[in-house]
Every structure is written in structure tokens, then in C-alpha cells.
């Protein structure tokens, strides 16, 4: 007898369901819902302390940012699988990436060796030789305005703020994840660097169909990226979602109106 296969499409999305995150028993993220499709660019904007970075850390699995455990509904779903309990490296292997607001220094480990090991960890053994890998890495680095000699230096050791942020984007372009969260990647960059970084992000979305969540305080980078969706996060919740126009509105009036609206609601 012929089996009746379900024709339901496989949900290749990143879905965040009623996500609640607490740090030291204090709830910071208070029920966020978001669905990111492959190739989409989302921007989450919000004032300082609104819980944006906590959301990013929790998505990648930082142990300090605890998901509310006995909340059945609170889930992070990637490609139809609940990844809420997985350690960070398992999430990375499933295709999740986080560009850090404050990239960490590891002395004695060169950028290129680190990236090759990370590439193998995420994508399995590569048919590329070390030389080929380095050549393509150098090529990508040049496009991002990263000096080739930086690649043989220790990871983020003595790098300027701008160099660190560009390196995060180099990692994004090298690891080619399914979904990437970029936490304040634009902060501390001059306008030229913002342009380069924006170009890198667009490339990843277009060429590799990576779904992207840009977390930012300012809308400056969004001028160069034009996200498909913009979300305003205040006090641990997404209080308004819209298209690119919403970012414009923030530029004109700031977060004041949203904060006010929120406080009236309360």
C-alpha cells in the first residue's frame, strides 16, 4: 500500500517562541516572538537596556542567560528542531551564528588557524587544502578591508574596535551559517567601515541565503542594508514590527514615543 506522505513544507526557519530570558533570576527578555526565513534580514532596534543583547546571548546558548525552564511555550526552533537545550557548539553546527558585540581575545591562537578549525567543526572536513583555505580567507579579508597580516596574529589580540568587528563579519562570510545574529556589529565603526560591514552582511544574505537578525541601537547601518523587517524592542518585548519605514521613524523621533506609549499602556 502506498504511504501517504505529508506535504507540509519543511520549516527551514529560525523561530523564536515566547522567549523569556533571565539573568540572576531577573527576567530581562519577557516573551519575544520572531520568525526569520532564509535570506531575510530583520533588524531589532531599541534603547539601551531593552534586552536586545540578552536575547542574542540566549539564542546562542550563553549559560548566564537562562531560558525560563518550566515554560512549555518558550522555545528556539531551528529547521523544525528545538535547540533550546543544546550547548553553543551544537547550535553552531546546526547553522546558528552570533557576531559578538565584544569579541573575545585568545592569545597565541592565530585568526587563520582558529577559523580553519571552526570551519571544520561547523562544516565537517573540507576538501580544501590549508593553502586554498588561506587563500580564499585572504581574499575575503581584503574585501572587508582587513589587512592580511591580521590573519596570522592572535585572535583579537590588540585589534582595534573596528578590526574586531570586521573580523566578526569575516567569520560570518567564512562559516556561512543558516542564521546569524549580529549584536551591535555597527557600534564603534566609522562610516566607511559601516559600509564595508553592511556590504558583507548583504552578501551573506543574498549569496548564501542566510537569515539575518541585526541588533542595533542606531539605524545608521540600516541605511546601507534596508532590512525586510524592523522590530522595536523595549523593556524585554517587541512592541512594534514593521518594514524599513519604521527605522526611518525612529531616526526622526527617537525611541521617546515608543517609551511613552509603553508607559501609558502600563
Amino acid at each position, binding site marked *: 500500500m502506498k504511504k501517504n506522505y505529508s506535504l507540509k513544507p519543511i520549516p527551514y526557519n529560525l523561530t523564536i517562541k515566547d522567549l523569556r530570558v533571565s539573568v540572576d533570576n531577573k527576567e530581562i527578555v519577557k516573551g519575544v516572538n520572531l520568525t526569520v526565513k532564509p535570506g531575510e534580514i530583520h533588524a531589532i532596534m531599541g534603547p539601551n537596556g531593552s534586552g536586545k543583547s540578552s536575547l542574542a546571548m540566549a539564542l*546562542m546558548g550563553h549559560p548566564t542567560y537562562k531560558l525560563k525552564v518550566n515554560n512549555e511555550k518558550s522555545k528556539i526552533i531551528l529547521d523544525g528542531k528545538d535547540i533550546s537545550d543544546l*550547548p553553543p*557548539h551544537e547550535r553552531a553546527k546546526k547553522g546558528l551564528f552570533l557576531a559578538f558585540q565584544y569579541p573575545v581575545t585568545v592569545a*597565541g591562537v592565530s585568526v587563520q588557524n582558529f577559523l580553519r578549525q*571552526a570551519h571544520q567543526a561547523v562544516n565537517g572536513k573540507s576538501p580544501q587544502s590549508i593553502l586554498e583555505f588561506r587563500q580564499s580567507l585572504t581574499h575575503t579579508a581584503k574585501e572587508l578591508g582587513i589587512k592580511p597580516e591580521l590573519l596570522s596574529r592572535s585572535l583579537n589580540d590588540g585589534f582595534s574596535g573596528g578590526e574586531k568587528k570586521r573580523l566578526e563579519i569575516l567569520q560570518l562570510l567564512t562559516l556561512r551559517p543558516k542564521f546569524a545574529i549580529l549584536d551591535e556589529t555597527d557600534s564603534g565603526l566609522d562610516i566607511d567601515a559601516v559600509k564595508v560591514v553592511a556590504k558583507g552582511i548583504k552578501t551573506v544574505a543574498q549569496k548564501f541565503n542566510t537569515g539575518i537578525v541585526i541588533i542595533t541601537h542606531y539605524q545608521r547601518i540600516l541605511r546601507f542594508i534596508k532590512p525586510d523587517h524592523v522590530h522595536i524592542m523595549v523593556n524585554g518585548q517587541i512592541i512594534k514590527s514593521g518594514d524599513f519605514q519604521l527605522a526611518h521613524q525612529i531616526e526622526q523621533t527617537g525611541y521617546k514615543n515608543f517609551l511613552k506609549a509603553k508607559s501609558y499602556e502600563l
Partner: protein
Amino acid sequence: MSRFAPIPPPAVNIKGFDQNYLAGFAKPIDDYVFKSQPGLSETVVEAISHYKTEPPWMRQFRKTALKIFATKPTPTWGGDLSAIDYDRISYYLRPTDRQEQRWQDVPKDIKDTFERLGIPQAERKVLAGVKAQYDSEVVYGSIKKNLAQKGVIFLGMDEGLRKHPDLVKHYFGKLIPPADNKFAALNSAVWSGGSFVYVPKGVEVKLPLQAYFRINAPNAGQFERTLIIADEGSKVHYVEGCTAPAYSSQSLHSAVVEIFIKKGARVQYTTVQNWYKTVYNLVTKRAWVEEEGEMIWTDFNMGSRLTMKYPSFLLAGKGARGETLSMALAGAGQHQDAGSKAIHLASHTTSTIISKSISKGGGRTSYRGLVSVSPTAKDVKSKVVCDALILDSKSRSDTYPTNRILNSDVTLEHEATVSKVGEEQLFYLMSRGLTEAEASKMIVSGFVAPLIKKLPLEYAVEMNRLIDLEMEGSVG
């Protein structure tokens, strides 16, 4: 304990031995030519001297040293030595009567052991000469012909005493006399094996000379004695490696190494110490450096239950240089009390001490160091850097530096850092797909990389492998 993931059940280790210690196999042999009864006495000392048919001065040297050992109290300023039971240790184990020059002539059990440790293979590839010591005696020795023709001497210490009695008598025990410390006295009383190296004027030994030390019997003591003389303008790199089977009972290793560096000569002495975790490793190492000479200690301590070792150099001639690169890794039940001593006796001398230590799983590392500058030594430069990496909250690291500077014409730098492998570092690397163990390994190998780079390639590879093994299963 990991916070990044549900904790997997620990790997069951039935024997209670460290499965990652690859050198832990035992090939017990019961046909020792001579094995002294456990315990230390004048009879044992006499027996050793008798078997070696030593000259009377050496016999007397031993007997005097034994008396000094008995009168000196056990030092209490360093690691815990209270569990050493001197009466249970066998002080002299003579596995064979002769040293061979061809591996094929070495008794089979012994040869098998060294083959499993990769010694003959390494000799063929990268070494200028090899000594292999099994318990108390050197069982194999070789040196490349061209070096022998240039007058380079590389012998077992016993053989050196027989063949070059005057040279040995002139230097032996002059830099580290028996009364130096309790364990130097013990070594002086019961020493056996070790190397005797003489490099003639202007001769450069390009490939390393290697000695390999293996304690094979349980409850054994190994007390090798090494004397290196580098004549004017010569150069040599001496490497020693040490392992022991994974016995649960304690063993004692107490060596003495004396090095004399003449004008303009250079000696590098590298130790890869990987004793099993029940071995007490109490070693005295000292170099005398004359005008424009240079001494480099590369001292890597991975194994042993307790190591107390502070390789030192006396910079006795103008412009002499000394450098110590010390690396220590202490895991569960281990204490690495290591460091260095830089003694500036002459002007325009420079010293550098770089120490990197890693403690994990409840292990303890201590840096203990001395920089001493005599009143007449002018224009002296000294730099001490000690970095400690602590992998978890159970582990411990301490720094005990001493500076004794007796004049004002001195540039002294001292830097010390203690870092914990932070959650942030692990999280960053894990977010790129590395497991927690891989991330820790990467952080540790990056931490020691500046020291590993100073080793010849083959040893660097071996060190990285040992560190990787040591890091396996250290998380979870």
C-alpha cells in the same frame, strides 16, 4: 564542571589509572642483575660503588653525602614531602651489566619498552646521539661518528667516570655539592646513570643529544647524575625525556645536573618531564656560565605527583646570559612547584625567566624564583615574566618571587599575570562550533605557544601532543 551542556556521565576508568597517559604500560622484569633491598643504608651505598668498581674518592664522596642526607631536615617551604617513605624505596636496580651500542643487543624486554616509547625511531631521524636509561643504569648509548671524531664525548656518567677520571673528578659535585640540599645529598650518595658530555673548543653539535629516562620497577628510585662541559665557543643542545609505568605506588626521582659553560659557549638543556602521577620529582639543576657564554633551560613539566625544580644559572663572566623557559601543567593530584634562579655574579650579564603554568582539575602550580645580583655586578639586566592559567575553581596557582639586588646599576622587570579561562572565552569559541574540550585545548595551546616555539620542531610536535592528551577529558 561544564555549564554549557547537560553533563555526560564520566568515562569509567576501571583500573583507576589515567587512560590518557600513553607511557603508562609496564613490562616488569624480574631478572635484575642486582636489586638492592628497600631502604637506604651505608651497605646500599657500598654495594652501588662496588658494582661500579669506582675509585676510592667517589666511594668516599658517596658516604659523606649519605651522612649529610641523614642530618638535613626535609624542606617544608615547598611541596608536601611528608608522604615519601624512604624505607620502601629501592635505591639501586641494575637491569643489565653493560651498555650496548646497537639497539639489537639491548635485552628484549628493555628494547621493547624503548621502542614503544619511540626512542630508536627518533634517533634515526633527528638526533646526534642517544642515551637510554632503564631504572638505575644506562642500557644503550650511541653518538654520530663525525661528532666522536671531533672529540665530542657523550657517555653514561658511570662510563665517563671510568674513561675520563680526571676530567670528572675536576668538575663533579663542584657546582652542586652534596650539602646543597637534602635531595642533592641523596643523589650524591646513591647516584647511578645519567650523562657525561664534553664538547671541545669551537665544536658545534648541530642536532640534539638526547637522554631518555625510564623508571620501570615499582617503588623504585632513579638518581641519575649529569655533567655537561661546553668548552670555549662550543654549542650543544641536550634533551631529556622521562616516563614511568602507571604504578599506584610511589617512586622517587632525584637527579643532579651540573653544567659548565666556558667563554663564548652555549648550552640549551631541554626537559620533557612526563613521569607518571605517583612519582616524586625532586631535582637540582645548575649551570656555571663564563664570559659571553649562554645557558638556556627549557623545562617542561607535565607529569609527577610533586615536582620541585628550579634550574638555575650563575652568570660568572662578563656578558654572560641566562634564560629559563619554564612550563608546568598540573592536573588532579599534582603539584608543580617550578621556577628558576638567576644569579648575577659579573657585570653586563642578562637573564630572562619566562614561566607559564596551567592548573586544572584541582591541580596546583607554583612559580618560585630568585633573581640575585651581587654588589660588584654592574649593568645587569633581568626580566621575569610569570603567567598562570587556571582552568577551574578547584585549581590553584601561586607565585613566590624573590629579588636580592645588592647594587643600584640594575634593570629589573617583573611581570606576573594570573588568568582564568573565562566563560566568555569558552563561549566565544563554542559559538564557532568547537566543543568545550576543544575550546579549552585551543586556549591552553595558545597560552603555551610562545614557549613551544622555542623547541626544535619534533619536540614542539611532541609537546603539543602531550598537552592535547592531558587536556582530553579534562572537561565534563
